[in-house]
């Protein structure tokens, strides 16, 4: 178990993790916003760089596991540039609804423009929202997805409880997030890649090594598979399970509102 991650993520003091640094809880949201403000316009490029394009496959499986169907309401938290929302929009059809939510206005702006460019507008609502206090009615959403967003949330337990409240009974939560490689060898290669190659790429391509270093550090501080599973169960989700992908580099957690 990732003890450090667990203890640091939701420790009962006034500080929290910002990568490997401890910062005031109140300050973290602003600092994360700073990172994403600086990368918003290059976010998709950054994802492609970080994952070698594999993030598209991870998201494809997330869409499959959502079992989204016409008429449903889907909430995509930390929806970034709207790639999941665009695909959900086609699946739920004109009688359904997709809510693209993100705490960061710059990301939402990029996402909204991309969705308009793709012609996905009729059934999509764009909302600036904090995952810890979702501004939606109780029992109003069939499925919530949060892809590569939970690790940036200050109080993950609070966010999970907020998601549970918004979900309809029987509704599902899907958390797609970087996790812990299942093989020690892969873990070493992954560490080298994250702390040597990734910041260098950030410096060369985006002239922003610090943001890339924060992303690598925040991944290491995020709860591992079993810890996150326990957090979902503690929040009140039932039938929780996870699928490791790419050797555990990423895990997709699933839980249902009882």
């Amino acid at each position: 178990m990732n003890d450090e991650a667990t203890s640091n993520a939701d420790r009962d003091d006034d500080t929290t993790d910002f990568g490997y640094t401890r910062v005031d809880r109140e300050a973290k949201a602003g600092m994360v916003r700073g990172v994403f403000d600086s990368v918003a316009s290059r976010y998709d490029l950054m994802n492609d760089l970080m994952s070698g394009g594999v993030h598209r496959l991870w998201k494809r499986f997330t869409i499959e596991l959502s079992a989204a169907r016409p008429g449903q309401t889907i909430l995509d938290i930390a929806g970034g540039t709207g790639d999941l929302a665009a695909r959900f929009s086609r699946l739920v059809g004109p009688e359904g609804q997709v809510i693209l939510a993100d705490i960061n206005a710059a990301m939402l702006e990029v996402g909204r423009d991309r969705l308009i460019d793709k012609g996905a507008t009729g059934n999509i609502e764009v909302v600036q929202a904090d995952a810890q206090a979702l501004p939606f009615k109780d029992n109003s959403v069939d499925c919530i997805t949060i892809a590569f967003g939970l690790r940036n949330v200050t109080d993950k337990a609070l966010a999970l409880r907020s998601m549970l409240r918004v979900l309809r009974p029987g509704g599902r939560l899907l958390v797609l997030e970087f996790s812990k490689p299942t093989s020690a060898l892969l873990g070493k290669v992954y560490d080298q890649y994250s702390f040597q190659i990734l910041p260098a790429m950030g410096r060369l391509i985006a002239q922003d090594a610090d943001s890339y270093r924060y992303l690598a550090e925040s991944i290491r501080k995020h709860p591992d598979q079993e810890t996150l599973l326990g957090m979902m169960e503690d929040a009140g989700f039932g039938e929780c399970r996870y699928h490791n992908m790419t050797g555990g580099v990423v895990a997709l957690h699933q839980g249902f509102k009882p």
Partner: protein
Amino acid sequence: MTQHDPALLSAALAGAEQALNQAISLAPHSHQELDAVSGTLLGIEVTSLDLTVYIEMVTGTDVRLMAHCERETDAFVRGTLEDFAALATSNDPAATLINSGIELQGSSASLITLQQVIARMEIDWEAPLVDILGDVAGHQIAEGLRRFFRWGEGARASLKRQVSEYLLEEGRLTPPKAELEHFYDAVQSVAMRVERAQSQVEKLLAKAAARETPQ
């Protein structure tokens, strides 16, 4: 937990889906046939690979491949890779479906339609080539591709015929099909005669035993 890494499977399915949809978009005659089965969901379990794939016919021009699906399938087939290869290349899919080891649940109609559309798919290479290269060069290259595929088809048929002739006539490694069928018929006929003789013998033995039994 899933048996296969979902990311690997997603990669394979994403590639296959793109290739299939590209092929369908270039084969306009298939659209109407696929439209007739739009909305249909097929499940295919390849037991030898421990793999299940779902095929959703979204519209006449859009097919979706999935590794995970919770909707009830219209048809679900289960078999080995060899069984499915035989079905995919069969001239008579209905007969292959019945005679092979494939288990089928649900309606076979949509499965057979899909197999026939894929088998008959004639890809129009000219349209995308003309779009990219213009009328003259696009047409010439498409004509060259058509000639190449016709030659490939002819070469394949010719090779198959020559291999068959060699095995039968030159190498005498296998008997001719008619001779083999005649042999099977003869074996069947002998088996039936033996069965009849056996039942006659049993009848006679029973009669003899009855006579010998004191009244």
